[in-house]
């Protein structure tokens, strides 16, 4: 909601513009407002909002309540003004007076006929206006109210409540632009739900001045109208060129590898995913996406082609410049390749230095700031789309298939994106696991993991280093660490497993894995190693326990999913000497090495 200070500032700037004090370079525009209520004070707000969009406005406000007269009388002030744009605001409360005055006296069909009749009138008037000013843009503004004619009648569909008729009228105004090129709907009625009608009006202004909008209401309506007017007159941006590292995903793929980037279904990874989804939605409306990244092409493309959590795929990009050249040069090349001017481009990059460079080198390119926190970026994109940069008045079939067309033209031999096979992806990681008995060198790390690991932690027992030593000294426990390495990095010790023995039963006191390595079937390999160790020691039953906490719910099904049988709440057993019972095995994609020390 607009602040008072801004309101006054805008009004003053608007007044200055209207009195002829104009910065150079603005395009002139004559805009008329025909309103069923008094909207005269909107003029400076309209001028200011249009001024911000590069338009120098002259504003004509028709006498209120005389929409029909102004349109139908060929000698009216409206036509003498010779408008380029005409905003028509037929407020429901003004056009449906019988409905608002005595809704209870209307027969069932009467309300409908009133609405249909008024909408028919409006359609006729707008058609007449279109004939007399064929080059003008006509903006129809649906304007309802939250105050139904008969609020004491609770049934929302009852004629006497008047709600259905009110809604039908507003919807009808919304639909007046169907099939007409020069008619645009400025959906104030929908927008007003945000702040709420009450915030946008002051009844004293109605009684003393026939105004249905207060200061903020007028300012916001002016903004909405200006946005649509500018949208019609000036071309929208057609291409969104995006950086990749730390923009489409967290991290630098060339440094941390495919498995190390932040992109997934949770936390920051999800924020990056949603950012991608927003761009994909823009793509669906006909906007072209281009990649502009400083990277080894194989590294960046591996994410687009292979990462299971990447939403945007190579096919969604109309063109790519992934190399070590400067980005301004790359953008020029993209413009040439797509045969579009740089003034069609929006450039998104997390790095303010890159943004500054591009904005300086290519002033025609729109370079919006991106919030530093990835979590804030989806909202920033929405605001960008709502503003005047990425709008679309509507979406056509051509829009939906625009990227496909560009790609077909550009390179017919471009490799198609493979369907993602998760196992194959895991295989490409070349994971190696080392399971070893706990030793002095790994004791501290083991205790740290007990303390810190929350998500994949079956029992969440916070063993201290001293506690672990005592366990080992007792002779009836085995403690194993698991270290993981893959093609891109050595993760070090990331897992801990503790087996305690009682007669022929082995219990998994602790099984935990660092969240960094979840989702790669490493837990299965570890379980296999523990089960094997238990069996070697002569246990016939392996007991697994699950203690639920706020954070480890994902592990709830771990044991049951691997053939353990539930015996009671949170306790599961697996028979280790039953030939019909398969032992947990190491998944094919992983290489597991078990080191057996001399002491247990």
């Amino acid at each position: 909601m607009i602040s008072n200070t801004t309101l006054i500032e805008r009004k003053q700037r608007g007044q200055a513009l209207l009195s002829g004090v104009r910065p150079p370079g603005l395009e002139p525009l004559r805009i008329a407002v025909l309103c069923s209520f008094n909207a005269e004070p909107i003029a400076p707000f309209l001028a200011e909002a249009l001024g911000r969009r590069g338009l120098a406005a002259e504003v004509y406000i028709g006498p209120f309540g005389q929409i029909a007269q102004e349109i139908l009388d060929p000698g009216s002030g409206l036509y003498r003004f010779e408008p380029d744009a005409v905003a028509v605001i037929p407020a429901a409360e003004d056009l449906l007076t019988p409905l608002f005055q005595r809704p209870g006296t209307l027969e069932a069909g009467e309300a409908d006929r009133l609405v249909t009749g008024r909408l028919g009138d409006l359609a006729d008037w707008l058609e007449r206006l279109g004939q007399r000013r064929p080059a003008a843009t006509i903006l129809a503004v649906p304007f309802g109210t939250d105050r139904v004619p008969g609020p004491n009648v609770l049934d929302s569909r009852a004629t006497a409540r008047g709600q259905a008729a009110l809604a039908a009228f507003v919807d009808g105004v919304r639909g007046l632009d169907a099939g007409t090129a020069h008619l645009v709907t400025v959906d104030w009625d929908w927008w007003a739900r945000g702040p709420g009608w009450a915030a946008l009006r002051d009844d004293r202004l109605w009684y003393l001045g026939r105004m249905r909008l207060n200061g903020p209401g007028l300012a916001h309506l002016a903004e909405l109208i200006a946005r649509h007017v500018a949208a019609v007159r000036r071309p929208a941006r057609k291409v969104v060129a995006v950086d990749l590292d730390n923009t489409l995903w967290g991290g630098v793929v060339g440094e941390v590898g495919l498995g190390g980037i932040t992109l997934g279904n949770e936390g920051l990874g999800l924020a990056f995913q949603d950012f991608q989804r927003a761009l994909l939605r823009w793509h669906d409306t006909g906007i072209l996406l281009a990649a502009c990244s400083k990277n080894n092409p194989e590294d960046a493309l591996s994410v687009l082609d292979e990462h299971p959590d990447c939403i945007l795929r190579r096919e969604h990009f109309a063109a790519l410049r992934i190399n070590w050249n400067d980005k301004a040069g790359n953008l020029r090349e993209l413009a040439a390749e797509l045969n579009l001017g740089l003034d069609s481009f929006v450039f998104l990059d997390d790095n303010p230095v890159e943004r500054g460079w591009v904005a300086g080198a290519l002033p025609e390119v729109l370079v919006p700031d991106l919030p530093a926190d990835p979590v804030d970026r989806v909202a920033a994109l929405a605001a960008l789309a709502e503003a005047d940069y990425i709008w679309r008045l509507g979406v056509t079939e051509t829009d939906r298939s625009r990227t496909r067309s560009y790609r077909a033209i550009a390179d017919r031999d471009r490799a198609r994106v493979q369907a993602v096979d998760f196992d194959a992806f895991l295989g490409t990681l070349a994971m190696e696991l080392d399971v070893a008995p706990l030793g002095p060198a790994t004791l501290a790390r083991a205790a740290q993991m007990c303390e810190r690991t929350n998500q994949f932690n079956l029992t969440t027992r916070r063993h201290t280093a001293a506690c672990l030593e005592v366990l080992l000294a007792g002779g009836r426990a085995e403690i194993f660490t698991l270290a993981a390495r893959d093609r891109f990095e050595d993760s070090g010790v990331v897992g801990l497993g503790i087996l305690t023995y009682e007669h022929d039963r082995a219990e998994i006191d602790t099984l935990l894995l660092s969240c960094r390595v979840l989702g790669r079937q490493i837990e299965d390999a570890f379980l296999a190693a523990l089960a094997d160790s238990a069996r070697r020691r002569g246990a016939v039953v392996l007991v697994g326990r699950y203690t639920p906490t706020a954070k480890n719910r994902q592990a709830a099904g771990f044991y049951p999913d691997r053939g353990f049988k539930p015996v009671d709440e949170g306790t599961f057993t697996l028979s280790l000497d039953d030939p019909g019972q398969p032992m947990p095995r190491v998944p094919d994609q992983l290489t597991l090495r078990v080191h057996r020390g001399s002491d247990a």
Partner: protein
Amino acid sequence: MRQRIKQLIATTFNVPATAVPDDATADTFDAWSSLGHLELMMNLEMDFNVRIPTELMPGLNSVEAIEDYPRSQGVAD
């Protein structure tokens, strides 16, 4: 208080503050029409954080009349 009101009048009617005499009334400025008056009332309310009853509004049509109102509501100078 008087200065504040004169500034408010100046802002509302888009004139320099120096052009607002102490005895300014609705007749002094073209822009102080009935519509302009409503706008002035709204600005007064925002600035002084008061609510002016509808029936009193028409009467607040001079610097003097306006000056008295916030005072009567206990607004400090």
